[in-house]
């Protein structure tokens, strides 16, 4: 396993585009997470009356335990950045035909796919760990008092966030293997949300219960949007087994479809 991961990392670590995209991703993650409070302050200065109606310091955006879900959800928005990285990595193998040489040199098709899947796992893990660390640091800075174990409620969103990233990267990898061209794959990746939205809005009228089973919806459902709680609405602040199960099945299917495609095509 480590051997295959090292092979794929070797391809990436001397590739400038990889560092640029990774740099932008983690930079945005950190800056985005750390600057939310400043953003609120700026808004209150710009928009007259904003600060009076809602006292911004009373919104516990960065307080434990709210910060776990808040940050996990916000960071989830940035996963397109890593996904583009994954698309570039797999479609390069097709445009340069290096996948062909890898197989000739003695990788099996399964091993080739696994090397990409392991990298996806690593990227997901790195995202989760970074966001978790950012959450700990900012939480310690902004929280007025620490109230254990209450401060840890919602921490289970981190494994869910990990699955969210990994599921989406699996989707991106599968698209890349089917489409094989980077531009088209990225466009499809963006449009897939729109396509799913159109299908969903039609299904919604007949079987509203089926919505949660859609692939991209299931990925979004892992960590639900938390901010409605600040306008006194009920939100789901727990990870549900069903949401994990649905997303896990889709993740398996994405990788399995990629495997089938790779297995039966000439390279």
């Amino acid at each position, binding site marked *: 396993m480590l051997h295959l991961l090292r092979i794929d990392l*070797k*391809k990436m670590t*001397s590739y400038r585009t990889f560092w640029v995209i990774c740099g932008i991703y983690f930079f945005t993650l950190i800056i985005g997470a750390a600057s939310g409070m400043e953003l609120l302050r700026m808004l209150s200065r710009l928009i007259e009356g904003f600060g009076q109606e809602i006292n911004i310091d009373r919104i516990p955006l960065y307080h434990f335990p709210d910060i776990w879900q808040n940050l996990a959800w916000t960071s989830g928005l940035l996963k397109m950045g890593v996904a583009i990285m994954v698309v570039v990595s797999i479609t390069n193998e097709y445009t*340069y035909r290096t996948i*062909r040489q890898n197989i000739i*040199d*003695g990788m099996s098709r399964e*091993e080739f796919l696994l090397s990409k899947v392991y990298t996806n796992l690593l990227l997901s893990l790195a995202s989760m760990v970074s966001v978790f660390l950012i959450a700990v640091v900012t939480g310690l800075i902004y929280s007025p008092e620490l109230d254990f174990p209450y401060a840890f409620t919602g921490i289970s969103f981190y494994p869910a966030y990990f699955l969210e990233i990994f599921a989406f990267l699996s989707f991106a990898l599968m698209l890349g293997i089917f489409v094989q061209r980077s531009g088209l794959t990225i466009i499809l990746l963006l449009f897939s949300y729109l396509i799913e939205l159109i299908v969903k809005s039609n299904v919604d009228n007949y079987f509203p219960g089926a919505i949660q089973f859609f692939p991209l919806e299931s990925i979004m459902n892992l960590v639900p949007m938390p901010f409605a709680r600040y306008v006194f609405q009920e939100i789901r602040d727990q990870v549900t087994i069903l949401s994990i199960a649905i997303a896990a099945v889709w993740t398996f299917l994405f990788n399995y479809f990629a495997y089938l495609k790779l297995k039966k095509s000439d390279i």
Partner: protein
Amino acid sequence: METVLSINGLTKTFGRLTAVNNLHLEVKRGQVFGMLGPNGSGKTTTLGMLMGVVNSTSGSFSWFGQPPTSHVRKKIGAVLEHPIFYPYLSGQKNLELMAMIKEAPVANIPKVLELVELKGREHDKYKTYSLGMKQRLAIASALLNDPIVLILDEPTNGLDPMGIAEIREIIKKIAADGKTIILASHLLDEVQKVCTHFAVLKRGNLMHYGPVDDVGKGEEMVEVAAYHDDLGVLLQEFIGSATVKKENNEFLVMMKEGYHSQDLNRFLFDKGIVASHLITKKKTLEKQFLEILAEGQVMNSIKK
């Protein structure tokens, strides 16, 4: 002799096109095996199937008597068609990556770079290499794991004449080590110089299979010129001549079996004619190749 590669009825179709049709072949240890055939005859497709990148439609093959696996491929050095590398990596990094895949010792890298004379340029990005340098890196990569079998598909494509001669020497050197080489090429005199056996494909069908040494055998051809007005008539009288053709100032005599140039020479001498020009022409592989293609006889199985 030990069988390295055995192909049984291998077939590949692309839609309606049959690229390789029911191919049977055997390659034994130590052979330098030439794969010949016009463009699109199925050489690369065959090699692609042997290296696991093209899925065969039917038929089978085995390496070293075992079913083909990715593990077996690690012991084979192969370059099909064009050199393929990561353009943004240096030659050195590309070879390091390949060594990881092939589980080859990294210590081999300087050796193979030396062999193809790329030393000094290994840290430049692959995309900055000239065509010939790319070819050389490809050959270096094929040699990386000290392979038992080497598969080269047009390895001298784009090389300068010196490069071609160098590659020929490298191939001969590797062959002298007892390694098995499968070589697809259009340079027939190169094939004749280095190969021990050859096969000819045409539109996916096997047309011929045999040792290169057999090419020169059979009827001899002699080119003669002499200061004599009726030389043509005289040559027809010679009992050893099958056909006589005039080409420019020389006559081309196709000899009957069992007759050689010295018989012709003696015949002329007895007639009081001294030849000013007398050359025995062995049939070239090129000529045989063209004949095989023209005959159009498909050979569907080989005698083992």
